[in-house]
């Protein structure tokens, strides 16, 4: 069996997808001591949170896949049964307390490499030399940021610590910062590491640390917030988006909070920065924030916010709605908010309880969440066993509206149906086509030619040589959104996975219906409805006829079959059913 906790080395550009996460527990790891920031599970006989609920859960393939979809980024169909067997408690333990990967090839968190020259060298330089150093810096930033984002996405696909990745992604949508504003990737990377280390820990500590986080302070202009000349940006967003939610504070609270945040800025050295509190810029006079009077500073503000009843409710609602994908009722939110308050804002505990809560498995929730671009792409890579370049996933997610570390605004990403427009819907299908090899640069070239003929551009340009024609087409192709992604795959010499043909061969599936059932199970994160299966059965027959393949020959592992099944996968992954998880 594949070792599920094995890992790939950092900086490896291609995803090594034989090493998939989501695998069931194997004999040699179940006894390994858990580690990480979360305390080890209680000894046998002691009360374990959620133990009694675990017995009441409807536990089947659907539940297992549901947990992996929401608490991770998906699971291969063939790994599901082992988790059905292992039971909910084992799966939740595995997610909340993953085994460490140790030894050779263990993933290490991405580290920023500082610029190869010093601030002093930079300020001494002049003219051409300075320009050269600046150019070098821009290249450096671009490369580091790309490598960092790709490293994270590789981690998601490898599935080593899926719940932590999931919650880290959620928090990046709460405590937002954007490289576009912050400019220096080292700050974003530093913020990511803080969020990651606290993603399943204490929200209270996370809030305190975020108020000292260089990226956030720069992103929300607090570096310019000083006594006598307050800047309200951070003060407003910390209340509205990071802790209380709109309606739970007044305008005066914001201006007073802004005064408490004066002086909280950063000390910069070329490409890196650290938190610096400047007492000279701080307004030490008395302020009243949410009814609490004192000469508050940033830490006092965090404590005042944490003491507000609205704070725990806001965080509980954020977590529940993010993972369930449907609105949470007030009563339920209050039940979880109470747990947060009792535990001093322990988010790991909250998530653990949620995953063992039968309401997490209700019919309104399962299969009803719109997969975000990252969910769709990482999930498809996992299910298809596609060795996609991480860069492809990062860029495709950005094209679909989820540009990691560059959210559209301070509110982060809107989840749910907001991801889906007529345009992103078709784009998802085109990206799926690129992943399975059904859409490539040649597909676009053919379409570009059609478009040019349709527009009469060909006639206007007069007779063209082959070279001129290709150049004109090239210009046209650049306007296709999916073209950049297709080029990434071409440059990486990407080969689509043959998972489908292997699965059909191994199952000996020799009727359209069998193949449809087999492959929809492999490709989709949800159970498809019967009407979709019937439709796909007809479509598969048409595809077969196009490639002149008899039903009896479906299990043959040959080029023609692979291509036909890739066309079929392209269609399946373009359907409404593939946008849910």
């Amino acid at each position: 069996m594949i070792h599920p906790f094995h890992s790939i080395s950092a900086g490896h550009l291609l995803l090594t997808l034989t090493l998939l996460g989501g695998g069931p527990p194997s004999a040699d790891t179940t006894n390994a001591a858990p580690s990480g920031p979360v305390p080890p599970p209680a000894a046998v006989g002691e009360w374990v949170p959620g133990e009694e609920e675990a017995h009441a859960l409807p536990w089947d393939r659907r539940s297992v896949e549901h947990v992996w979809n929401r608490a991770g980024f998906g699971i291969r169909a063939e790994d599901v049964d082992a988790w059905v067997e292992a039971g909910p408690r084992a799966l939740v333990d595995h997610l909340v307390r993953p085994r460490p990967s140790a030894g050779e090839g263990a993933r290490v968190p991405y580290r920023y490499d500082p610029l190869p020259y010093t601030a002093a060298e930079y300020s001494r330089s002049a003219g051409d030399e300075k320009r050269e150093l600046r150019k070098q810096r821009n290249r450096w930033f671009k490369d580091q940021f790309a490598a960092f984002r790709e490293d994270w996405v590789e981690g998601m696909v490898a599935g080593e610590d899926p719940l932590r990745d999931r919650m880290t992604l959620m928090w990046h949508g709460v405590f937002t910062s954007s490289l576009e504003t912050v400019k220096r990737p080292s700050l974003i990377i530093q913020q990511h590491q803080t969020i990651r280390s606290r993603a399943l820990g204490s929200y209270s500590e996370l809030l305190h640390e975020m108020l000292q986080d260089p990226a956030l302070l720069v992103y929300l202009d607090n570096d310019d917030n000083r006594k006598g000349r307050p800047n309200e940006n951070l003060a407003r967003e910390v209340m509205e988006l990071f802790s209380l939610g709109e309606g739970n504070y007044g305008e005066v609270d914001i201006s007073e909070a802004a005064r408490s945040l004066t002086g909280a800025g950063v000390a910069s050295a070329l490409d890196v920065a650290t938190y610096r509190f400047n007492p000279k810029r701080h307004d030490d006079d008395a302020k009243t924030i949410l009814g609490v009077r004192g000469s508050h500073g940033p830490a006092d503000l965090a404590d005042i916010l944490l003491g507000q009843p609205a704070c725990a409710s806001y965080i509980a609602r954020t977590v529940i709605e993010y993972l369930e994908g449907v609105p949470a009722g007030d009563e339920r939110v209050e039940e979880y908010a109470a747990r947060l308050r009792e535990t001093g804002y322990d988010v790991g505990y909250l998530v653990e309880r949620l995953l063992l809560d039968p309401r997490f498995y209700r019919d309104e929730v399962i299969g009803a969440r719109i997969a975000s671009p990252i969910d769709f792409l990482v999930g498809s890579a996992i299910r298809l066993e596609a060795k996609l370049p991480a860069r492809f996933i990062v860029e495709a997610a950005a094209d679909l509206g989820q540009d990691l570390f560059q959210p559209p605004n301070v509110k982060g990403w809107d989840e749910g149906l907001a991801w889906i427009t007529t345009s992103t819907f078709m784009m998802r299908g085109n990206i799926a086509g690129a992943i399975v090899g059904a859409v490539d640069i040649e597909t676009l070239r053919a379409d570009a030619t059609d478009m040019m003929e349709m527009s009469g551009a060909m006639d206007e340009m007069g007779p063209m040589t082959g070279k001129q024609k290709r150049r004109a087409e090239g210009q046209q192709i650049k306007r296709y959104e999916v073209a950049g992604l297709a080029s990434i795959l071409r440059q990486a010499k990407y080969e689509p996975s043959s998972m489908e043909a292997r699965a059909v061969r191994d199952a000996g599936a020799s009727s359209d219906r069998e193949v449809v059932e087999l492959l929809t199970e492999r490709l989709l994160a949800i159970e498809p409805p019967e009407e979709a299966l019937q439709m796909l059965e007809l479509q598969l027959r048409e595809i077969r006829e196009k490639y002149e393949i008899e039903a009896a020959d479906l299990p043959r592992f040959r080029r023609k079959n692979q291509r036909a099944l890739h066309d079929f996968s392209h269609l399946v992954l373009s359907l409404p059913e593939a946008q849910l998880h």
Partner: protein
Amino acid sequence: MLGVPEAHPMNLHKSDRRSFLRAAAASAAGAAFLPQALASGARCQLLPGETGKNLVLVQLSGGNDGLATVIPHGDDELRRRRRTTVHKASEVLKLDDYRGLNPGLRSLRGRFDEGQLAIVEGCGYPDAIRSHFKSYEVWHTGHRAGRISGDGWVGRLAATCWADEPRPDRVVHFGGKAPYSLFSREQPPVALASPTGYRWFGDEDAYAQGGAAICEHGMERDPRHVGRDDALQRLRATLDDARESSGRIRGAAATYRTEVEYPKTRLSAGLRDVAALVNARSGTQVFSVADRGYDTHSRQRQAHDRKMQDLGDGLGAFLEDLDRSEAGRNTVVLVFSEFGRRVAENGSSGHDHGKAGPMFVLGHSVKGGLYGAHPSLTQLDAGDLAFTTDFRSVYATLIGGLFGADPAQVLGADYPLLPLI
């Protein structure tokens, strides 16, 4: 979709209704088959088509500083409150002794002189909110309660005016995600990044089968899948809309020719695509584009001037392009933002979130000039400009003036009309 389609189209989901209508139209007895609600004809006086008007919404996201857009250069208070962010009086494109336009808006100055630019000053709403998101909800829905009140105002306009002839590209947003104003459960808008790539590359007949037509293959109604099936219903309608609008929009963009040179900005790329669709008379009636970068908390002067330059040059090219055709001359442009900014500058040579700001209404059908009243720089509402005109008056004017619809039906209340159409 979950229910067996009954012979009452109003109870059906839009896509089902569409196929129902197709089926009804195909049958000889089609007209007799239609219930009264559908057969009664258009509810708006002006029918879509060559004589119809189009509306283009230009959203300036982040909170555009109204006082640096329409600049009260004749007010000494401005210089007292704004030491580093104020323009020299000599830089301002003066409209009169009191106010003038930002130097970047040269093209709009020309339109003002030609009587094609209506400037509505001091637009806002009571109990203004300084949150970007909550304030946009108010602007997008026309309701103080925001999204809780339901669909966006353009979505409700579409449901009021074009429910009888649903087509997905009645309302089109260029440049990614559509703003909430266009949101409608019944008539969702088309939103796209670039028209060229706006298609699905594969066997389109097979793709079509994944939409609402899939119901023809028989339905499963298992209560275990209620959540999934609700979501699928929406997604299948999106697939239908995508497929139906793709050919039309791509065709219009591919065949579009213009002599006008647009600036190389994202805003202008979107405006050029709008011009292509307007001139193709593709049946789209409300267009939307959005630009961002207006949230100028620090070092506002340079950043905001650059935005104004992009806006002025982009709109200049766009309006010139629209001048060339009748459909273009029937088009009206509305420029707005979620709020203005604080009168006094903050400690970072920027301005924090404020309240009232100006709106622009542009086009050949517009009666140019100044509307509303410029807010006082001394009698402030908690440090902000107090609004003098409810922005919904502008919406109401356009709803009635361009589309012949009842503004109260769309906005849920009556607002005084402005004589600008």
